[in-house]
């Protein structure tokens, strides 16, 4: 499916802000295409299901998070159309969450491979994934203080731990 068709389909089904980024490479100037789609939180799960209409197993890469002060944007990077030369299109789906209500539905029921990424965003940014069963720490230690999020740009950032890593743990001593 080419990008124009995907954009058309998204516009038919969703209220979305779509941006197409193109970049050409090499002597033959072969173009790669990336879609950035910003949608409403309520539509998010429906959008992921919509990706399954394009491909049986859409490839999920990662969730990236950006702290805008009052709100946090989660950007889910998907791609569809693997297996043929220059056939793959990146589709990045952005959802903005206000900081006082950091909740979004999990996609692990549809794409089990998203588990690590959701656990990472949960511990690093503090987003609650509704329906995510395994919310243990993945990259932070099990005794990490609650309510501290290393990837935020606000008061929840653990600045007191910065540059003092050698003090956070010592041999034979419990913090």
């Amino acid at each position, binding site marked *: 499916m080419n990008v124009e068709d995907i954009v058309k389909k998204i516009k038919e089904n969703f209220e979305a802000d779509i941006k197409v*980024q193109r*970049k050409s*490479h*090499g*002597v*033959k100037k*072969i173009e*790669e295409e*990336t879609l*950035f789609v910003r949608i409403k939180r309520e539509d998010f799960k429906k959008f992921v299901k919509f990706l399954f209409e394009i491909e*049986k*197993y859409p*490839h*999920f*890469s*990662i969730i*990236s*998070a*950006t702290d805008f002060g009052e709100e946090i944007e989660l*950007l889910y*990077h998907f*791609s569809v*159309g*693997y*297996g*043929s*030369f*220059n*056939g*793959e299109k*990146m589709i*990045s789906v952005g959802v903005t969450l206000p900081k006082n209500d950091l909740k979004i539905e999990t996609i692990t029921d549809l*794409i*089990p*491979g*998203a*588990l*690590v*990424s959701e656990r990472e965003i949960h511990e*690093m940014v503090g987003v609650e994934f509704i329906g995510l069963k395994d919310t243990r*720490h*993945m*990259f*932070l*230690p*099990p*005794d*990490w203080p609650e309510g501290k999020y*290393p*990837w935020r740009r606000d008061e929840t950032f653990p600045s007191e731990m910065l540059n003092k*890593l*050698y003090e*956070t*743990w010592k041999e034979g001593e419990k913090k």
Partner: protein
Amino acid sequence: MSETYTIPVGPLHPALHEPITLKLEVSGEKIIGVDVFCSQVHRGIEWIGMNRNNPIQSIYLSERVCGICNICHPLCMVQAVEKAAEIEVPERAEYIRTIAAELERIHSHLLWAGVAAHEIGFDTVFHYTWALRENVMDLIEYLTGNRVTKAIMMFGGVRRDIKENGAKKLREGMKFYLEKFRKIEEIFLQDPTIKMRTRDVGILTREDALKLCAVGPTTRASGVPKDVRQDFPYAAYGDYEVKAITPDIYNGEVHGDVYDRIVVRLLEVKQSIEIINWALDNMPSGPLLAEKNLVRLKMKLKKAEGEGIGRVEAPRGEDIHYVRLKAGEEPFFSWKIRAPTYNNVLPWIPMLLGGQIADVPIVAASTDPCMSCLNRVTVVDVEKKKEFQITKEYMHKLSVKKTRRLMRNGR
């Protein structure tokens, strides 16, 4: 025996001498449950890029995400920034990037093949493969000035040219590897013991590979033709038209086991040799950098506003960087690194389930895990609750014993 035990393996990794914890639930020798824990070498690289460094400093920081993939991470990151700031890359630079990335693939796959041989107890093969790998390391040093951190990437191009002498040396090196390839193939793919230890061990089905979003040789060995160089071409790969390698090219069938992962990686070494030879023959002339003046480049990036995604097929699979730039701010506003091992950790669970403890090292090693890629945020922690610790040496011993047993019985 109906009773089951939980055995923590790690934090030091049994296969690649890197820190990760596996919790295995075993009944006798059979593995019936697997859980994975990371978090021992988080270094906060993204945080530094978002708060302290200017973008040019971040190139060299991103090289240090991983000691092995130190072309693909900076390449991925500069591509993301080039898209965000709309910088055009000269054609010659794209060809040099391709050659550098393929040299990295050769050295990484040979390194992996040596480690895999070591894990099943063939230390002579391990030393032989690593001795072969020295040639490509010398080539890398000759072309970039360094064996490990090559410092060759820059926004809008590369920092060093490949001149006539370099091209000559590269051609000689590729000839050397083509000659040796037959021998490597014979050692790894036709040896009956290696086949016994790896055939139908650590199977990842096509379905699981797709559902768990596995990447790189791990997913290709399960018959999924996912390769960023083919699907989403960057640098000069679009001109070459790479084809993803799946094991059925070699022997007409896909098992999705450790043996297939060896097949895919070895064939990719051959493919890399071909790509390098092709790139040398077709290299266009022209400038290397879009903007030579670093101060001007830095100012341009400071003024730029936008976002971009860089995607690269690293030796271990798809590597992806997301970068967002905000006008007036020097560090990245947002930077996310996703190294291939990140997606290849969950597939360990179906691979290990039902297997034996003696197979853990080779199965874990078969995905070519890279823990420093996986963990990037600094945290100091040592897990204290380990009463039944299986050390890496003990596992290695078990693995070697199994190979010896198979060799005896096989004869």
